């Protein structure tokens, strides 16, 4: 008689189940193709065969109206959804640059240690609390309709798109500041100790040791926020700036067909998908590097 510690006298069954073997290798490819066709085909069928399917296709996805909305025709009272995207693009480009800089300044203020900078520390904390707590739409409305009323000359005489852009900067800087701050706080304390023990000042330590490492770790979450910023340029439409969304809105209320919205959606996807893919690529590369290091 064998003791328990010797284990089974006869080797146990070491083969994978039939199902697992079927799903391995070539079988897996077949399985994923079949399940893909079934799921996506099923969703398409529901959309296609629903009682109101034909109506929805006509009002939302009609190629003729989509093209008409894309090119626009001001003589008929509607603007080009395609050209509207240029407005979104410049709002995004300007806002992005300002957000990255302002976010860094706010984060630095919040992370400062000098007693002289205490008021800035307090202000930056209040700033991030307030502007992460107010819906962006409200910030846009308040700045867009509030600033012109102030009668401040130059400041009160800007286009709606400029106010919208400013509101996005105000709101997103708060988020981006927190991303930077999280990045800085994620750097091990030993890095700070090592740098300070070499006689580097707090500022030099930040500049040469902490920030270079922090920025690297926050690139993926930063890009996430920038993707979100790209989409939120659509919110500027509430101020009346003729950007993609606004153009699609005008089109739908002029022609009584909503296909312009589909065009706007597709245009936004064309903008954001490359950036999402790029972000995922960076995350994957980062992960691979970490796993290789461990």
């Amino acid at each position, binding site marked *: 008689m064998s003791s328990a510690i010797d284990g089974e006298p006869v080797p146990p069954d070491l083969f994978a189940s039939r199902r697992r073997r079927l799903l391995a290798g070539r079988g897996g490819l077949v399985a994923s193709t079949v399940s893909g066709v079934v799921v996506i085909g099923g969703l398409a069928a529901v959309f296609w065969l629903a009682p109101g399917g034909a109506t929805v296709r006509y009002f939302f996805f009609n190629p003729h109206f989509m093209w008409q909305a894309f090119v626009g025709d001001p003589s008929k009272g509607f603007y080009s959804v395609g050209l509207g995207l240029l407005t979104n693009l410049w709002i995004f480009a300007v806002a992005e640059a300002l957000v990255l800089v302002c976010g860094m300044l706010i984060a630095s203020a919040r992370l400062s240690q000098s007693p002289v900078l205490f008021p800035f520390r307090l202000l930056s904390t209040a700033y991030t609390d307030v502007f992460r707590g107010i819906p962006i739409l409200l910030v846009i409305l308040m700045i867009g309709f509030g600033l012109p009323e102030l009668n401040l000359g130059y400041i009160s005489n800007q286009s709606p798109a400029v106010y919208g852009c400013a509101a996005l900067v105000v709101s997103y800087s708060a988020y981006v500041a927190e991303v930077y701050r999280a990045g800085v706080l994620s750097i091990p304390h030993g890095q700070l100790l090592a*740098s*300070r*023990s070499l006689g580097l000042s707090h500022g030099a330590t930040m500049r040469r040791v902490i920030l270079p*490492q922090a920025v*690297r770790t926050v690139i993926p979450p930063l890009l996430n926020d920038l993707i979100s910023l790209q989409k939120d340029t659509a919110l500027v439409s509430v101020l009346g700036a003729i950007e993609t969304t606004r153009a699609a809105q005008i089109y739908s209320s002029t022609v009584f067909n909503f296909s312009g919205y589909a065009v706007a959606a597709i245009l936004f996807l064309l903008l954001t998908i490359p950036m999402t893919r790029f972000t995922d690529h960076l995350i994957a590369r980062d992960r691979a590097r970490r796993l290789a290091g461990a």
Partner: protein
Amino acid sequence: MSEVVLALRGVRKRFKDHEVLTGVSLALSRHEVVCLIGASGSGKSTLLRCANLLERIDGGDIELFGQSLLDPRIDPDRVRRHIAMVFQSFNLFPHLSVIDNILLGPVHALKRPRAEVRAEAMELLERIGLAARAQDYPDRLSGGQQQRVAIVRSLAMRPSLLLLDEVTSALDPTLVGEVLDLLTDLARQGTTMLVATHEMGFARDVAHRVAFLESGRVIEEGPAREVLDHPREPATRAFLERVR
């Protein structure tokens, strides 16, 4: 006559309601190697950090070359340029190559010309046999190599005093020797060192004096062999029996 480099007098340090250092007094002369021994939590690391002004002390005094470091006119950054520190977990900068790790302090804290420091740094790397790895990033090196680079990084500051905080405790046992050999070399060349360590063999062979810490104070101190082989205090004896 030996010159006193560092003197601690009744140094106290508390974290919240836990007093880690309860009045430590210790003096270190030029060319002297003093080992701090004691159980984990006895205050060795805290003492080193206080000596480097990385922690603010709550009582007592610290003097460097007879100058009190509690004087409000003191610039802690300038103090730290004379007192180098090596950490248990190396703390090399992962985003900088080996050579840039070493150059950071001399170039950006001491403002010395890069080319000049670079030549010195390469010489130091040559001495530890890692000159060929100058352009590598720290994560490409073994633990022992990283710790030796960290030691060289602190030496590049040409410090008056080297603080070493359990520098072999995070190392694979097979790599401890190479780091201790480097420290032994430094001791022979007359580097002034305050070494918190659990390596009793190193303490016996290399240290001039040993100080035993318990509950945040120096219980016993004296010539290394005397303290380690013939401890007077029961607490020291009990500790040495536990680590033997």
